[in-house]
Protein backbone atom coordinates (compact mmCIF):
# COMPACT_ATOMS: atom_id res chain seq x y z
CA UNK A 1 0.00 0.00 0.00
CA UNK A 2 1.26 3.48 -0.85
CA UNK A 3 1.08 6.55 1.33
CA UNK A 4 0.64 9.99 -0.23
CA UNK A 5 4.34 10.33 -0.84
CA UNK A 6 4.40 6.89 -2.41
CA UNK A 7 1.66 7.87 -4.87
CA UNK A 8 3.58 11.03 -5.70
CA UNK A 9 6.80 9.08 -6.10
CA UNK A 10 5.24 6.61 -8.52
CA UNK A 11 3.71 9.39 -10.60
CA UNK A 12 7.07 11.16 -10.67
CA UNK A 13 8.44 8.15 -12.58
CA UNK A 14 6.06 9.07 -15.41
CA UNK A 15 7.83 12.38 -15.95
CA UNK A 16 10.04 12.64 -19.01
CA UNK A 17 12.92 14.97 -19.64
CA UNK A 18 11.71 18.23 -21.15
CA UNK A 19 8.11 17.92 -19.95
CA UNK A 20 6.05 20.94 -19.04
CA UNK A 21 3.93 19.88 -16.10
CA UNK A 22 1.01 21.37 -14.19
CA UNK A 23 0.55 20.08 -10.65
CA UNK A 24 -2.76 20.38 -8.84
CA UNK A 25 -3.21 20.96 -5.13
CA UNK A 26 -2.71 18.06 -2.67
CA UNK A 27 -0.83 14.88 -3.59
CA UNK A 28 0.11 16.26 -7.05
CA UNK A 29 2.11 19.03 -5.39
CA UNK A 30 4.24 16.38 -3.71
CA UNK A 31 5.32 15.02 -7.09
CA UNK A 32 7.78 17.93 -7.35
CA UNK A 33 9.76 16.39 -4.47
CA UNK A 34 10.43 13.15 -6.33
CA UNK A 35 11.51 14.19 -9.82
CA UNK A 36 14.03 11.54 -10.94
CA UNK A 37 17.67 12.55 -11.38
CA UNK A 38 18.48 13.55 -14.95
CA UNK A 39 14.87 14.44 -15.70
CA UNK A 40 14.38 18.15 -16.18
CA UNK A 41 10.81 19.37 -16.11
CA UNK A 42 9.34 22.86 -16.03
CA UNK A 43 6.45 23.38 -13.66
CA UNK A 44 3.62 25.53 -14.96
CA UNK A 45 1.50 27.42 -12.47
CA UNK A 46 -1.73 28.53 -14.11
CA UNK A 47 -1.75 31.89 -12.37
CA UNK A 48 1.00 32.89 -14.77
CA UNK A 49 4.39 31.25 -14.45
CA UNK A 50 6.62 28.66 -16.07
CA UNK A 51 9.59 27.48 -14.05
CA UNK A 52 8.21 27.29 -10.53
CA UNK A 53 10.93 26.81 -7.94
CA UNK A 54 10.78 25.58 -4.33
CA UNK A 55 9.32 27.49 -1.37
CA UNK A 56 11.41 30.53 -0.43
CA UNK A 57 13.70 30.60 2.56
CA UNK A 58 12.05 32.09 5.63
CA UNK A 59 12.08 35.86 5.38
CA UNK A 60 12.40 35.82 1.59
CA UNK A 61 8.70 35.43 0.76
CA UNK A 62 7.54 37.71 -2.06
CA UNK A 63 3.80 38.52 -2.05
CA UNK A 64 4.01 39.06 -5.81
CA UNK A 65 5.26 35.51 -6.34
CA UNK A 66 2.75 32.78 -5.57
CA UNK A 67 1.55 29.58 -7.19
CA UNK A 68 -1.98 28.56 -8.10
CA UNK A 69 -2.42 27.24 -4.55
CA UNK A 70 -1.61 30.77 -3.35
CA UNK A 71 1.57 29.55 -1.66
CA UNK A 72 4.71 31.67 -1.71
CA UNK A 73 7.26 30.17 -4.10
CA UNK A 74 10.46 31.11 -5.92
CA UNK A 75 11.63 31.40 -9.50
CA UNK A 76 14.42 29.44 -11.17
CA UNK A 77 16.86 30.48 -13.90
CA UNK A 78 14.74 30.49 -17.05
CA UNK A 79 11.43 31.33 -15.37
CA UNK A 80 8.92 33.30 -17.41
CA UNK A 81 5.90 35.21 -16.09
CA UNK A 82 2.76 35.85 -18.13
CA UNK A 83 -0.89 36.70 -17.72
CA UNK A 84 -3.85 34.43 -16.96
CA UNK A 85 -5.23 34.51 -20.50
CA UNK A 86 -1.95 33.39 -22.06
CA UNK A 87 -1.55 30.82 -19.30
CA UNK A 88 -4.81 29.14 -20.21
CA UNK A 89 -4.03 29.70 -23.85
CA UNK A 90 -0.97 27.47 -23.58
CA UNK A 91 -2.99 24.94 -21.60
CA UNK A 92 -5.83 24.96 -24.13
CA UNK A 93 -3.41 24.65 -27.05
CA UNK A 94 -2.00 21.46 -25.53
CA UNK A 95 1.46 22.87 -24.82
CA UNK A 96 1.46 21.44 -21.28
CA UNK A 97 2.67 17.84 -21.57
CA UNK A 98 1.25 16.49 -18.36
CA UNK A 99 -1.34 17.54 -15.82
CA UNK A 100 -1.50 15.80 -12.46
CA UNK A 101 -4.52 16.42 -10.29
CA UNK A 102 -6.66 15.00 -7.54
CA UNK A 103 -10.21 13.74 -7.93
CA UNK A 104 -13.25 12.71 -5.94
CA UNK A 105 -14.35 10.24 -8.62
CA UNK A 106 -13.06 8.89 -11.92
CA UNK A 107 -15.10 6.81 -14.35
CA UNK A 108 -14.00 3.90 -16.51
CA UNK A 109 -14.46 6.19 -19.54
CA UNK A 110 -12.04 8.75 -18.14
CA UNK A 111 -14.63 11.20 -16.82
CA UNK A 112 -13.56 13.08 -13.72
CA UNK A 113 -15.45 14.75 -10.86
CA UNK A 114 -13.48 16.89 -8.47
CA UNK A 115 -15.17 20.21 -7.89
CA UNK A 116 -18.63 19.97 -6.45
CA UNK A 117 -20.61 17.95 -3.93
CA UNK A 118 -24.34 18.71 -4.13
CA UNK A 119 -25.62 20.09 -0.85
CA UNK A 120 -22.19 21.26 0.26
CA UNK A 121 -20.71 24.71 -0.10
CA UNK A 122 -19.10 24.90 -3.53
CA UNK A 123 -15.86 26.81 -3.67
CA UNK A 124 -15.46 26.68 -7.43
CA UNK A 125 -13.63 24.73 -10.08
CA UNK A 126 -10.68 27.11 -10.37
CA UNK A 127 -8.61 26.05 -13.35
CA UNK A 128 -9.49 22.35 -13.16
CA UNK A 129 -12.11 22.36 -15.92
CA UNK A 130 -9.77 24.16 -18.30
CA UNK A 131 -6.91 21.79 -17.50
CA UNK A 132 -8.88 18.57 -17.90
CA UNK A 133 -10.55 19.80 -21.08
CA UNK A 134 -7.31 20.49 -22.86
CA UNK A 135 -4.34 18.65 -21.36
CA UNK A 136 -2.90 15.98 -23.63
CA UNK A 137 -2.09 13.71 -20.73
CA UNK A 138 -3.86 13.70 -17.38
CA UNK A 139 -2.86 11.57 -14.43
CA UNK A 140 -5.14 11.49 -11.42
CA UNK A 141 -3.61 11.02 -7.98
CA UNK A 142 -6.15 10.00 -5.35
CA UNK A 143 -7.22 7.57 -2.67
CA UNK A 144 -8.85 4.47 -4.09
CA UNK A 145 -11.87 4.65 -1.80
CA UNK A 146 -13.61 7.52 -0.02
CA UNK A 147 -14.05 7.96 3.72
CA UNK A 148 -17.19 5.83 3.62
CA UNK A 149 -15.17 3.02 2.10
CA UNK A 150 -16.79 3.38 -1.34
CA UNK A 151 -14.76 3.02 -4.51
CA UNK A 152 -13.81 6.21 -6.34
CA UNK A 153 -13.09 4.26 -9.54
CA UNK A 154 -16.61 3.98 -10.92
CA UNK A 155 -18.57 2.85 -13.96
CA UNK A 156 -19.99 6.37 -14.05
CA UNK A 157 -19.30 9.37 -11.85
CA UNK A 158 -22.12 10.18 -9.45
CA UNK A 159 -20.92 13.71 -8.71
CA UNK A 160 -21.15 16.67 -11.13
CA UNK A 161 -18.43 16.29 -13.73
CA UNK A 162 -15.32 18.40 -14.15
CA UNK A 163 -14.55 16.92 -17.56
CA UNK A 164 -15.43 14.04 -19.84
CA UNK A 165 -13.20 11.29 -21.28
CA UNK A 166 -10.01 13.01 -20.32
CA UNK A 167 -8.18 11.06 -17.62
CA UNK A 168 -5.49 8.80 -19.05
CA UNK A 169 -4.03 7.28 -15.88
CA UNK A 170 -4.88 6.89 -12.20
CA UNK A 171 -2.50 6.19 -9.35
CA UNK A 172 -3.96 5.28 -5.96
CA UNK A 173 -2.59 3.71 -2.81
CA UNK A 174 -3.43 0.32 -4.36
CA UNK A 175 -2.02 0.54 -7.86
CA UNK A 176 -1.60 2.26 -11.19
CA UNK A 177 -4.22 2.08 -13.94
CA UNK A 178 -4.53 3.15 -17.54
CA UNK A 179 -7.99 4.27 -18.58
CA UNK A 180 -8.86 2.91 -22.00
CA UNK A 181 -12.24 4.19 -23.19
CA UNK A 182 -14.54 1.28 -23.99
CA UNK A 183 -12.36 -1.04 -21.97
CA UNK A 184 -12.09 0.34 -18.44
CA UNK A 185 -9.42 0.61 -15.75
CA UNK A 186 -6.49 -1.41 -17.03
CA UNK A 187 -4.38 -2.48 -14.07
CA UNK A 188 -0.72 -1.81 -14.83
CA UNK A 189 1.00 -2.23 -11.48
CA UNK A 190 0.09 -3.27 -7.94
CA UNK A 191 1.27 -1.19 -5.02
CA UNK A 192 3.82 -2.99 -2.83
CA UNK A 193 2.13 -5.75 -0.83
CA UNK A 194 -1.25 -5.29 -2.52
CA UNK A 195 -2.93 -8.23 -4.29
CA UNK A 196 -5.00 -8.14 -7.47
CA UNK A 197 -7.88 -9.43 -5.33
CA UNK A 198 -7.66 -6.42 -3.00
CA UNK A 199 -7.74 -4.10 -6.01
CA UNK A 200 -10.73 -5.93 -7.53
CA UNK A 201 -12.66 -5.58 -4.29
CA UNK A 202 -11.97 -1.85 -4.09
CA UNK A 203 -12.81 -1.05 -7.71
CA UNK A 204 -16.47 -0.49 -8.66
CA UNK A 205 -15.75 0.30 -12.30
CA UNK A 206 -14.74 -2.28 -14.88
CA UNK A 207 -11.27 -3.53 -13.98
CA UNK A 208 -9.12 -5.12 -16.66
CA UNK A 209 -6.43 -7.52 -15.46
CA UNK A 210 -4.35 -8.88 -18.30
CA UNK A 211 -1.59 -11.39 -17.55
CA UNK A 212 0.73 -11.10 -14.58
CA UNK A 213 0.53 -7.73 -12.90
CA UNK A 214 3.91 -6.61 -11.61
CA UNK A 215 4.38 -4.96 -8.25
CA UNK A 216 5.56 -1.41 -8.70
CA UNK A 217 9.09 -0.46 -7.73
CA UNK A 218 9.32 2.93 -6.16
Amino acid at each position, binding site marked *: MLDKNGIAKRIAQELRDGYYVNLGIGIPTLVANFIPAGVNVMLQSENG*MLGMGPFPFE*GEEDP*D*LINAGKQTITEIPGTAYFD*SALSFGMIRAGKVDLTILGAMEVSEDGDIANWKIPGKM*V*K*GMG*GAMDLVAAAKNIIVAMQHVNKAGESKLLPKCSLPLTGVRCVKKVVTELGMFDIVPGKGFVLLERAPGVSVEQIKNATAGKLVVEGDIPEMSI
Partner: protein
Amino acid sequence: MNKVVADAAEAVKDINDGAVIMLGGFGLCGIPENSISALIKKGVKNLTCISNNAGVDDFGIGLMLQTRQVKKMISSYVGENAEFERQLLSGELEVDLIPQGTLATRCMAAKYGMPAVWVRAGFGTEIQNGKEAREFVFQGEKNNYLLEEAFSADYSIVKAWKGDKFGNLIFRKTARNFNDPMAGAAKITIAEVEELVEPGELDPNQIHIPGIFVQRIFQGKSYEKRIEQRTTRKRA
Protein backbone atom coordinates in the same frame (compact mmCIF):
# COMPACT_ATOMS: atom_id res chain seq x y z
CA MET B 1 -2.94 61.90 -22.90
CA ASN B 2 -2.50 62.56 -19.22
CA LYS B 3 -4.67 60.02 -17.41
CA VAL B 4 -3.58 60.86 -13.88
CA VAL B 5 -6.17 61.29 -11.13
CA ALA B 6 -5.31 62.31 -7.58
CA ASP B 7 -6.18 59.14 -5.75
CA ALA B 8 -8.46 56.15 -5.49
CA ALA B 9 -11.41 58.25 -4.33
CA GLU B 10 -11.25 60.36 -7.48
CA ALA B 11 -10.69 57.31 -9.66
CA VAL B 12 -13.88 55.57 -8.50
CA LYS B 13 -16.06 58.64 -7.94
CA ASP B 14 -18.45 57.92 -10.82
CA ILE B 15 -18.89 54.23 -10.05
CA ASN B 16 -22.54 53.98 -9.16
CA ASP B 17 -24.82 51.44 -7.52
CA GLY B 18 -25.38 48.42 -9.72
CA ALA B 19 -22.14 48.77 -11.68
CA VAL B 20 -20.41 45.76 -13.21
CA ILE B 21 -16.75 45.82 -12.17
CA MET B 22 -13.77 43.71 -13.07
CA LEU B 23 -11.17 43.48 -10.33
CA GLY B 24 -7.67 42.19 -11.06
CA GLY B 25 -5.64 39.86 -8.88
CA PHE B 26 -5.31 36.17 -8.10
CA GLY B 27 -6.08 35.37 -4.48
CA LEU B 28 -4.66 38.39 -2.67
CA CYS B 29 -1.80 38.74 -5.16
CA GLY B 30 -1.94 41.89 -7.26
CA ILE B 31 -5.32 43.10 -6.04
CA PRO B 32 -6.20 46.82 -6.34
CA GLU B 33 -6.09 47.50 -2.60
CA ASN B 34 -6.51 51.26 -2.78
CA SER B 35 -9.52 51.12 -5.08
CA ILE B 36 -11.24 48.49 -2.96
CA SER B 37 -10.83 50.74 0.08
CA ALA B 38 -12.23 53.69 -1.87
CA LEU B 39 -15.25 51.69 -3.01
CA ILE B 40 -15.94 50.72 0.58
CA LYS B 41 -15.60 54.33 1.73
CA LYS B 42 -17.90 55.46 -1.08
CA GLY B 43 -20.44 52.84 -0.02
CA VAL B 44 -21.58 51.99 -3.53
CA LYS B 45 -24.05 49.06 -3.50
CA ASN B 46 -25.33 46.18 -5.61
CA LEU B 47 -22.08 45.66 -7.42
CA THR B 48 -21.44 42.79 -9.77
CA CYS B 49 -17.79 41.84 -9.33
CA ILE B 50 -15.89 39.86 -11.93
CA SER B 51 -12.84 38.62 -10.07
CA ASN B 52 -11.10 35.27 -10.03
CA ASN B 53 -11.44 35.11 -6.24
CA ALA B 54 -13.43 36.84 -3.52
CA GLY B 55 -10.67 37.74 -1.07
CA VAL B 56 -10.64 36.58 2.54
CA ASP B 57 -12.88 37.65 5.40
CA ASP B 58 -10.80 40.66 6.34
CA PHE B 59 -8.96 41.58 3.14
CA GLY B 60 -9.58 42.21 -0.53
CA ILE B 61 -13.07 41.79 -1.91
CA GLY B 62 -13.94 40.07 1.37
CA LEU B 63 -14.10 43.55 2.90
CA MET B 64 -16.76 44.56 0.35
CA LEU B 65 -18.74 41.49 1.28
CA GLN B 66 -18.64 42.50 4.94
CA THR B 67 -20.19 45.82 3.99
CA ARG B 68 -22.76 44.04 1.76
CA GLN B 69 -21.83 46.02 -1.33
CA VAL B 70 -21.72 43.03 -3.63
CA LYS B 71 -24.83 41.66 -5.27
CA LYS B 72 -23.12 39.11 -7.47
CA MET B 73 -19.69 37.52 -7.76
CA ILE B 74 -18.43 36.06 -11.03
CA SER B 75 -15.42 33.96 -10.05
CA SER B 76 -13.66 30.66 -10.56
CA TYR B 77 -12.85 29.96 -6.91
CA VAL B 78 -14.24 31.68 -3.86
CA GLY B 79 -12.03 29.96 -1.28
CA GLU B 80 -12.20 30.22 2.45
CA ASN B 81 -14.46 33.06 3.37
CA ALA B 82 -17.02 32.61 6.13
CA GLU B 83 -19.06 35.74 5.39
CA PHE B 84 -19.16 34.83 1.71
CA GLU B 85 -20.55 31.42 2.59
CA ARG B 86 -23.14 32.88 4.94
CA GLN B 87 -24.42 35.37 2.33
CA LEU B 88 -24.46 32.73 -0.37
CA LEU B 89 -26.43 30.24 1.72
CA SER B 90 -28.87 32.95 2.86
CA GLY B 91 -29.49 34.02 -0.71
CA GLU B 92 -28.15 37.54 -0.19
CA LEU B 93 -25.35 36.95 -2.68
CA GLU B 94 -25.49 35.52 -6.17
CA VAL B 95 -22.49 33.59 -7.39
CA ASP B 96 -21.61 32.59 -10.91
CA LEU B 97 -18.78 30.07 -10.86
CA ILE B 98 -16.97 29.68 -14.16
CA PRO B 99 -13.74 27.96 -15.16
CA GLN B 100 -10.65 30.06 -14.56
CA GLY B 101 -9.42 29.94 -18.13
CA THR B 102 -12.87 30.81 -19.43
CA LEU B 103 -12.96 33.75 -17.02
CA ALA B 104 -9.59 35.01 -18.25
CA THR B 105 -10.55 34.48 -21.87
CA ARG B 106 -13.91 36.25 -21.56
CA CYS B 107 -11.96 39.25 -20.25
CA MET B 108 -9.43 38.99 -23.05
CA ALA B 109 -12.22 38.68 -25.61
CA ALA B 110 -13.74 41.97 -24.44
CA LYS B 111 -10.34 43.65 -24.59
CA TYR B 112 -9.75 42.34 -28.11
CA GLY B 113 -13.21 43.28 -29.37
CA MET B 114 -14.29 39.68 -29.84
CA PRO B 115 -17.96 39.22 -28.80
CA ALA B 116 -17.56 35.53 -27.92
CA VAL B 117 -14.98 32.76 -27.88
CA TRP B 118 -15.00 29.00 -28.35
CA VAL B 119 -13.46 27.07 -25.45
CA ARG B 120 -13.33 23.42 -24.50
CA ALA B 121 -13.60 23.89 -20.74
CA GLY B 122 -16.92 22.74 -19.34
CA PHE B 123 -18.11 20.69 -22.30
CA GLY B 124 -20.12 17.74 -21.01
CA THR B 125 -20.50 19.33 -17.56
CA GLU B 126 -23.22 21.47 -16.00
CA ILE B 127 -21.28 24.52 -17.22
CA GLN B 128 -22.55 23.65 -20.68
CA ASN B 129 -26.21 24.26 -19.73
CA GLY B 130 -27.80 26.81 -22.01
CA LYS B 131 -24.67 27.28 -24.10
CA GLU B 132 -24.13 26.61 -27.75
CA ALA B 133 -21.78 23.67 -28.33
CA ARG B 134 -20.02 22.88 -31.58
CA GLU B 135 -17.49 20.42 -32.90
CA PHE B 136 -14.42 21.86 -34.59
CA VAL B 137 -11.45 20.18 -36.18
CA PHE B 138 -8.33 22.02 -35.16
CA GLN B 139 -4.82 20.87 -36.12
CA GLY B 140 -6.21 17.54 -37.17
CA GLU B 141 -8.05 16.89 -33.92
CA LYS B 142 -11.81 16.86 -33.48
CA ASN B 143 -13.13 18.38 -30.26
CA ASN B 144 -16.23 19.96 -28.79
CA TYR B 145 -16.27 23.58 -27.82
CA LEU B 146 -18.66 25.88 -25.98
CA LEU B 147 -19.44 29.41 -27.10
CA GLU B 148 -18.67 31.79 -24.23
CA GLU B 149 -19.57 35.48 -24.34
CA ALA B 150 -17.15 38.32 -23.77
CA PHE B 151 -17.84 40.19 -20.54
CA SER B 152 -19.55 43.57 -20.78
CA ALA B 153 -18.28 45.46 -17.76
CA ASP B 154 -18.55 49.12 -16.84
CA TYR B 155 -15.23 49.36 -15.05
CA SER B 156 -12.06 47.38 -14.87
CA ILE B 157 -9.88 48.07 -11.86
CA VAL B 158 -6.34 46.79 -12.04
CA LYS B 159 -3.17 47.06 -10.01
CA ALA B 160 0.23 47.36 -11.67
CA TRP B 161 3.78 47.67 -10.44
CA LYS B 162 4.80 50.67 -12.53
CA GLY B 163 2.84 52.98 -14.74
CA ASP B 164 3.35 56.25 -16.57
CA LYS B 165 1.05 59.22 -16.97
CA PHE B 166 -0.11 58.03 -20.38
CA GLY B 167 -1.41 54.85 -18.72
CA ASN B 168 1.32 52.46 -19.87
CA LEU B 169 1.62 49.64 -17.32
CA ILE B 170 4.16 47.04 -16.20
CA PHE B 171 3.29 44.24 -13.79
CA ARG B 172 5.60 42.32 -11.48
CA LYS B 173 5.95 38.52 -11.40
CA THR B 174 2.72 36.58 -10.78
CA ALA B 175 0.88 39.76 -9.76
CA ARG B 176 0.24 40.16 -13.49
CA ASN B 177 -2.44 37.41 -13.57
CA PHE B 178 -5.93 38.78 -14.34
CA ASN B 179 -4.78 42.39 -14.22
CA ASP B 180 -3.43 42.02 -17.74
CA PRO B 181 -6.48 40.64 -19.60
CA MET B 182 -8.80 42.91 -17.59
CA ALA B 183 -6.88 46.09 -18.44
CA GLY B 184 -8.88 47.51 -21.32
CA ALA B 185 -11.69 44.97 -21.11
CA ALA B 186 -14.30 47.35 -19.67
CA LYS B 187 -15.64 50.71 -20.82
CA ILE B 188 -13.42 52.47 -18.27
CA THR B 189 -10.17 51.02 -16.96
CA ILE B 190 -8.72 52.33 -13.72
CA ALA B 191 -5.12 51.45 -12.87
CA GLU B 192 -3.48 51.91 -9.51
CA VAL B 193 0.29 51.58 -9.48
CA GLU B 194 3.04 51.27 -6.93
CA GLU B 195 5.19 53.71 -8.85
CA LEU B 196 3.87 56.38 -11.20
CA VAL B 197 6.50 57.82 -13.54
CA GLU B 198 6.78 60.30 -16.42
CA PRO B 199 6.19 59.12 -20.01
CA GLY B 200 9.51 57.90 -21.38
CA GLU B 201 10.75 56.44 -18.10
CA LEU B 202 9.43 52.96 -18.86
CA ASP B 203 11.20 50.95 -21.56
CA PRO B 204 8.66 50.97 -24.44
CA ASN B 205 9.72 47.42 -25.29
CA GLN B 206 8.70 46.12 -21.86
CA ILE B 207 5.27 47.62 -21.45
CA HIS B 208 2.63 45.01 -20.68
CA ILE B 209 -0.39 47.28 -21.21
CA PRO B 210 -0.24 50.14 -23.73
CA GLY B 211 -1.85 53.28 -22.32
CA ILE B 212 -4.70 53.22 -24.83
CA PHE B 213 -6.36 50.59 -22.62
CA VAL B 214 -6.25 52.76 -19.49
CA GLN B 215 -8.47 55.78 -18.83
CA ARG B 216 -7.40 56.68 -15.27
CA ILE B 217 -4.21 56.05 -13.35
CA PHE B 218 -3.01 56.97 -9.88
CA GLN B 219 -0.15 56.38 -7.53
CA GLY B 220 -1.38 53.98 -4.85
CA LYS B 221 -0.21 54.10 -1.28
CA SER B 222 0.31 51.92 1.80
CA TYR B 223 0.20 48.59 0.02
CA GLU B 224 -0.19 45.79 2.50
CA LYS B 225 0.30 42.96 -0.05
CA ARG B 226 -0.95 40.34 2.34
CA ILE B 227 0.23 36.77 1.84
CA GLU B 228 -2.52 34.13 1.95
CA GLN B 229 -0.37 30.99 2.31
CA ARG B 230 3.06 31.74 3.68
CA THR B 231 5.06 28.65 2.74
CA THR B 232 8.80 28.54 3.32
CA ARG B 233 11.69 26.13 3.63
CA LYS B 234 14.41 26.09 6.23
CA ARG B 235 17.89 27.15 5.31
CA ALA B 236 20.17 24.10 5.01
